[in-house]
């Protein structure tokens, strides 16, 4: 590919190639604080290439490909090139990673213990992780939590935090524009803007933490907390894992250990402030 860079995020290394300069320049700026791994053998390759011979120049249209692909991946405009690269990396992890149990969850760490948050898109798990990461917690990741099959620890995957719609302004007010990526308007998921994690989140991205609490947050509802049984937690986590089936018995052993060791709660919250209060109380009481 004409333009490329190699990125390490947590334990995974990605080589991103692009037919256009722009996505690679944006990634280079936003991932400037991450380790330089240009000489590494990458775990995954992500390619951003034109959808057809003319599409490099005329209404540029990006096709995301790589080691692992989806047959029906929709092409994206060059203006969303950064998002295409991020989606490409997520796709490679989701489809190809086998070294840990992959949970579609955000995670933050305090005092060596991890809080894991999982839920549907729009549940607030990314926004909460981003904001907690500015309030004394270490951001471990907003998209994937990696559950170590042997130790039971959660390992970080602190890529750029993907913020959507109203979460963008809320987080920008806290961190300032300097750590934010370009505004990507009118994507398939609305407006998206990326946040660069704090330097300590990047510096410590090889350090895992034992999980101490599992939360199922749900934004936009009156404040409420209910305990979640182990069976429900297990079922929801298998749904939130892209490689549970592929890992076989070691995945079963790791996930059963997780749900029997880690208390789980569903948390409805109307605002960030309400969520912080509830999380502080839960953390003091149960974790």
């Amino acid at each position, binding site marked *: 590919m004409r333009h490329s860079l190699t990125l390490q995020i947590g334990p995974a290394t990605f080589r991103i190639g692009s037919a256009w300069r722009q996505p690679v320049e944006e990634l280079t700026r936003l991932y400037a604080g991450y380790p330089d791994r240009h000489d590494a053998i990458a775990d995954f390759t992500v390619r951003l290439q034109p959808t057809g011979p003319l599409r490099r120049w005329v209404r540029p249209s990006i096709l995301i490909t790589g080691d692992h692909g989806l047959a029906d991946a929709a092409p994206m405009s060059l203006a969303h090139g950064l998002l295409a690269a991020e989606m490409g990396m997520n796709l490679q992890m989701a489809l190809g990673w086998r070294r840990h149990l992959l949970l579609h969850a955000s995670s933050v760490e305090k005092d060596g213990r991890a809080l894991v948050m999982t839920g549907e898109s729009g549940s607030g798990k990314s926004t909460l992780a981003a904001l907690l990461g500015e309030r004394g917690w270490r951001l471990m990741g907003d998209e994937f939590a990696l559950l170590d099959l042997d130790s039971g620890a959660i390992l970080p995957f602190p890529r750029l935090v993907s913020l959507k719609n109203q979460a963008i302004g809320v987080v920008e007010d806290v961190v300032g524009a300097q750590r934010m990526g370009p505004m990507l308007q009118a994507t398939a998921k609305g407006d998206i803007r990326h946040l660069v994690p704090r330097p300590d989140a990047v510096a410590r991205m090889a350090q895992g933490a034992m999980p101490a609490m599992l939360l199922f947050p749900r934004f936009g509802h009156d404040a409420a907390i209910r305990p979640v049984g182990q069976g429900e937690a*297990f079922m929801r986590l298998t749904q939130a894992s892209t490689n549970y089936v592929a890992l076989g018995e070691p995945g079963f052993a790791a996930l059963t250990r997780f749900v029997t060791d880690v208390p789980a709660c569903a948390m409805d919250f109307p605002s960030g402030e309400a969520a912080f209060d509830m999380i502080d109380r839960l953390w003091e009481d149960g974790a």
Partner: protein
Amino acid sequence: MPQEDRFLKPIKRYRIDPRDACRACALDDLTLLYHARSGQTHMVISPVPEILDSIEDGASVTADDLWDRLTQSYDLGDRGEALAQIGAQLEALEALGLVRAA
């Protein structure tokens, strides 16, 4: 099952093949079974774990045999109803590949 029907149908025997042995994990509200042969995880509740425990020795059993075994540890209530339920559970477990017709 009405008494007459049971005499008309051949009495079916079931057993657990050692290769179908499941890795079980009891959670607070249900039991998980990992069936290595298929790679499937099953979420089950009573009486399935009790039935599987009582035939894990690999011997072939009928629903009646199973009733005899289970009733030593559990109060199963009406024998006819319990036998019908045990028979239905064995059929379901056979469909999942967790027990086999002997």
